[in-house]
Structures are given as C-alpha cells and as structure tokens.
C-alpha cells in the first residue's frame, strides 16, 4: 500500500507541560479520503501543523510522500494544500490578489496562475465577490476562499482542518461534495469532530483522543467494532437525571450505558442477556425517573456509536493506555 502520510512515534509536548500528540503512529493510504476524528483538544490540529512543519515534534517523525517534515521542508509543503480552521486572511486584499500571492508563493508561472485563479473562484462561487476586500467577507465566504487557496498549487495532498465549521447547510453540502470529488484524484485528510461529515465522505478513519490515535482503519472496520446488541434512547429532562439514570442502568447485570450526543443514552446489552427483558428493565428505570422517553433507536448512527464506544473504552483502559 502506497502511503501519503506516515508518522512514527510522533509526539508533541508543549513547554514540558501539555501533551498534544502522544506517540502517534499513523499511516494514510495514497488516494484515500481520511477522516481525522476526535473531540476538541484531541490533537488533530497539532498533528496537521506537525505535518506542515509549522511545529517541531518533541519526538518521533512524520513523512509526507516519503519526505521528512520540518520547518524548512519546502518540498513537503509544495505537495500540501492546507485549510486551517476559520482561516485568517489578509483583509486588505481582494480575492484575486490573495490567490495571486499564494500562486507566487508556490512558484506558479503567470500563464498557469491566472487561469487557475479564475477557475477556482468560479468553483467556490466567489466570482461575484472579486471586487470586495476580504475583510468584508462572511465566515462562509472566508472558508470558501480558504478552500480555493488550498487548491491554488493543485497539490496531491489536502489537509483540511474543520472545513465545514461555521458554514450554512448549503455551503456545507457544497464542501462535502467538493471533498468527495477531490477524493477521486487526491489524498484528502479532513480533521473534524462532526461525525456525520466523516460518515458521508471518508473511506478511512483515524480516531484521536487526548493526543493518542486510538483507532485507524477503514470505515467498515470502524463500524464492525460496534456491538450491535444495543439501543439508543432519546430522553427529555435534566442532564443530571440522565447521568443518574446511566449510573443506575450500569448497576444492572449485563447492561452498560453511555451518555451520547445531546440527551441520548446508549445502552449495550451483553450477549448472554435477553434483549427484550433487558430493555424492559431499562424502560422501568426511565419510568421511575423524572425523564421522559422520546424515541428508541436500534443500530442507528453506527459511526457515532462506534466512536463514542472507542472513547469510552479508551478512558476505561486507564493505566493500560
């Protein structure tokens, strides 16, 4: 398998205090759409910045297309198109001026640069905003310009950090379609904590938690990890009561409960337990609590459940981590 990115024992510790990336071994196959998933502060952005050479690893190393990453690794950065979260753009410039500057930074000759800028502005839907200065742009427009900026040099690898952050539903749909389209010819790494994005566009996945890579593999592998003998219960009521309910459910034999996104309780039933009886016991506890049951789902949101399960398992492993 040809690799676009490979890291070995990659570690980043800030000021001997904060471990941002912890002994990470990562392999991203060439031509894949790779989702880097993790909660806020998991180390996703730091990983991308280490690949770009904007930060120096405390230990270990990273390679992009077989070349070592570092502050002066110009040849590595020429292969990468980077989109930061909420990109900070020079407000005094107009979009064409900005993209022209970036084209020059990538040493593109004028005859390549100019037509590509026009094509990109058309592709991201900013053709009508070329007269405006960037400081007048909305968040969505800035992100779209950031997308165009990452594509100016037509690099084989794209590192996009939270590309759908702050976008309205239309712009979000556009971005996801674009990633899917680009994924046919390029390697795309999308760092996000939005599971539905990952679900829609990625074929490979890496899950980070507290600086560690706790899972890497294909989306199928990820979903296989999910134990199907479970339910997702949508509840209404106080968050403390839901937590209390989770504790009570955990006290039941052969039943585990995890807090899900929003007011959801994920319930896992051990193989030896009868599903209907177990569910009846859980429903009885809900009935006794101050909560009301809105819906019961079975086997839905597979990626989300698998992801939450991974995080819970990682936390439960404690010292073994």
């Amino acid at each position, binding site marked *: 398998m040809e690799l676009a990115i490979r890291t070995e024992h990659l570690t980043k510790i800030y000021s001997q205090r904060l471990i941002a990336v912890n002994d990470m071994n990562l392999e991203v196959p060439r031509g894949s759409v790779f989702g880097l998933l993790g909660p806020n502060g998991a180390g996703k952005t730091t990983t991308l910045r280490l690949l770009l050479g904007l930060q120096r690893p405390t230990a270990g190393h990273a390679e992009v297309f077989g070349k070592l990453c570092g502050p002066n690794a110009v040849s590595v950065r020429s292969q990468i198109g980077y989109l930061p979260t909420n*990109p900070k753009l020079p407000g005094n410039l107009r979009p064409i001026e900005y993209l022209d500057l970036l084209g*020059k930074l990538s040493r593109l000759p004028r005859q390549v640069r100019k037509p590509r800028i026009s094509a990109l502005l058309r592709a991201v839907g900013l053709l009508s905003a070329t007269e405006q200065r960037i400081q007048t742009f909305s968040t969505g427009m800035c992100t779209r310009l950031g997308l165009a900026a990452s594509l100016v040099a037509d690099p084989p690898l794209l590192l996009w950090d939270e590309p759908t952050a702050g976008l309205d539903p239309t712009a979000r749909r556009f971005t996801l379609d674009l990633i899917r389209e680009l994924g046919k010819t390029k390697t795309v790494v999308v760092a996000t904590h939005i599971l539905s994005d990952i679900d829609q566009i990625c074929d490979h996945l890496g899950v980070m938690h507290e600086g560690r890579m706790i899972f890497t593999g294909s989306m199928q592998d990820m979903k296989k990890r999910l134990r199907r003998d479970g339910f997702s219960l949508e509840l209404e009521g106080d968050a403390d009561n839901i937590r209390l309910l989770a504790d009570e459910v955990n006290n039941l034999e052969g039943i585990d409960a995890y807090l899900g996104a929003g007011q959801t309780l994920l319930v896992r039933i051990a193989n030896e337990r009868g599903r209907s009886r177990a569910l009846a016991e859980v429903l009885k506890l809900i009935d006794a609590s101050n909560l009301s049951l809105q819906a019961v789902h079975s086997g839905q949101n597979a990626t989300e459940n698998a992801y939450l399960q991974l995080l819970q398992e990682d936390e439960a492993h404690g010292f073994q981590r």
Partner: protein
Amino acid sequence: MDSSAKISKLSTRMMPYLAILQHDMRALWASRLVRLWLAATAVLTLMLALANWSKFQDAPMIATLLFPYLVFPWFFVVVVLGVSPVSGSRAEALADGILSRPVSRSGYLIAVWFARVMLVWSIYLIVIVPFIVLVTLAKRPVLEDMVTIYGIVTVLFLVGLVLTFLVSLGFLMGTLLRKPLLAVVVLIFVWYPIGLILSVFSLEEFSPISLAQALPTQLRQPWREVEEGPKVNANKEDMDAFTNQFSHFLNVLSGTKPQPKADTPDFFESEEFANFSLLRVTLGYGIPTLLTIILATLSFYWRDL
C-alpha cells in the same frame, strides 16, 4: 544552460520571496503607523528647520535634522516596525497564510526584514533629502559652511545604518519574545542606557548620541582628503582602533586585565571628533546588524507557530 535560462530559473526561485516583499511593503504603506510616521517626521523636520533657520550653519543644521532619527522619537517607531512581523497574533496569521506554503522560514524572515528596512530608508530619505537640499542651497543669514557631498552621503548612510540596526534589533526581540509589547519595552530599556553600556566597554564612539555629535565633522569631510592620504595606513589605523575596542570589550566580558598601550586621546576628549572613522562606525553597526539577523533567523527556525 544559457544565461536567459539561468535568469528564468533564478526568478522562479526568488518568486515567493519577491511576492512576500511586495505584499509586506504594500501592507506597511497602507498601515496607519507608517502614514502617521511619515507625516510626523515631515512636520518635525520642518519645525526644526524653521526654528534653526537663522541660527545654525549647514553642518549643525543637518545634524539637528538627523538627531530625531538617532535618538528620539523615531527610534521607537522603527523598533515597533521591526518587532511586529513575527510576533503576537500576526505569527498565527502568517503561519496559516504564508508559512504553510512552499516557503522557507529563513527566506520569509529575510524578505520581511528587507521590506521593513526598505520602508524605513524610504521614509527617512523622502523627508530628509529635500530638507538637506533646501538647507545647503538656500541663502540663509548664517556664515557659509563647508559641507561636502561626500559628507552628506556618508552621514545619510550612517544614520540609515543605525536605523537598519534598530529594525534588526526589533526583529530579534520580536522572534525571541512572542509578545510585541514586551519586546518593545525590553528594547526601550536596553537602548536608552546604551551610552552607559557602551562606555563600560569603551565603545562610546558607537553610541547614537556621540554619533549625532560627530555628524557636523563628518559633513565637512572632503572626499579628496580621503583619497590623497595614505589610504592603507588610514584603514590600518581604523582596523587597529576597532581591534583595540573589540579586545577591550572582550577583556571587560572575561574580566581579564587589558594590555598597557600608548595613550591616545579618547573620542570624546577632542570636541572636533577628528578621529571619527567611517569604517569603524560602519563595522560597529554593520556587524551587530548581521548578528541580529542571524540570531533572529535561528530563533525563528526553532520556534513553533
């Protein structure tokens, strides 16, 4: 490979750095600080010229006009311009926008340093040259002075060199200390007692105040006299003096006793500053400028963005 292909290859290699230089210059000219500085320096120079119009001869008059660049208040502006590009929130923005592209850190740093040096020189020359022309050509109610073109060019060069050093010092502080305000405060505390610091090492000749005092002498310096004199010996004397100052500097640092040598009058003892040496002062500011650039580049290379 023929020469046109070589030039084309070189221009492709230099393209990112020229683009950064152009972009930075444009951003600087658009900044309020720079526009305000340009206006303020023009106003102050005009006020100084008017106030001393009938008082000073050409040489002290030009030295007076140059004084604000060497001591106060333009030192502060030049330092702030030097500090800003690689510190504070700007560092993050430039990491996202420029340093994530195929650009080396050292190349970026030298491009933005050069942009600032060019800007400072431009503003300084745009304002001061017309006033110098006016002062030297106008018929003023003062005694005629013997200011030479050579003297004017060398003095402009020296003051520019000091400004270049200040930009570089700001640059170094900006890379060492991430907070721009802290960097500026540290520089103020280092720069203002510089005369005292230099006197400890017997390097008073390099202090901006003594440089300002020596400017009238240098302005009257003819080019021919330098040519006529024994050039090799003159340079040798300069180099000897520079070596002596440097060894004294090392002695102070290491705490060793200096070797006794023949007593020559100190720079300050003769008020005419006849022993002022252009080469020595150029080296005295040029070498530290190079050192600060090298240190800033190293510091920036090791820094996380």
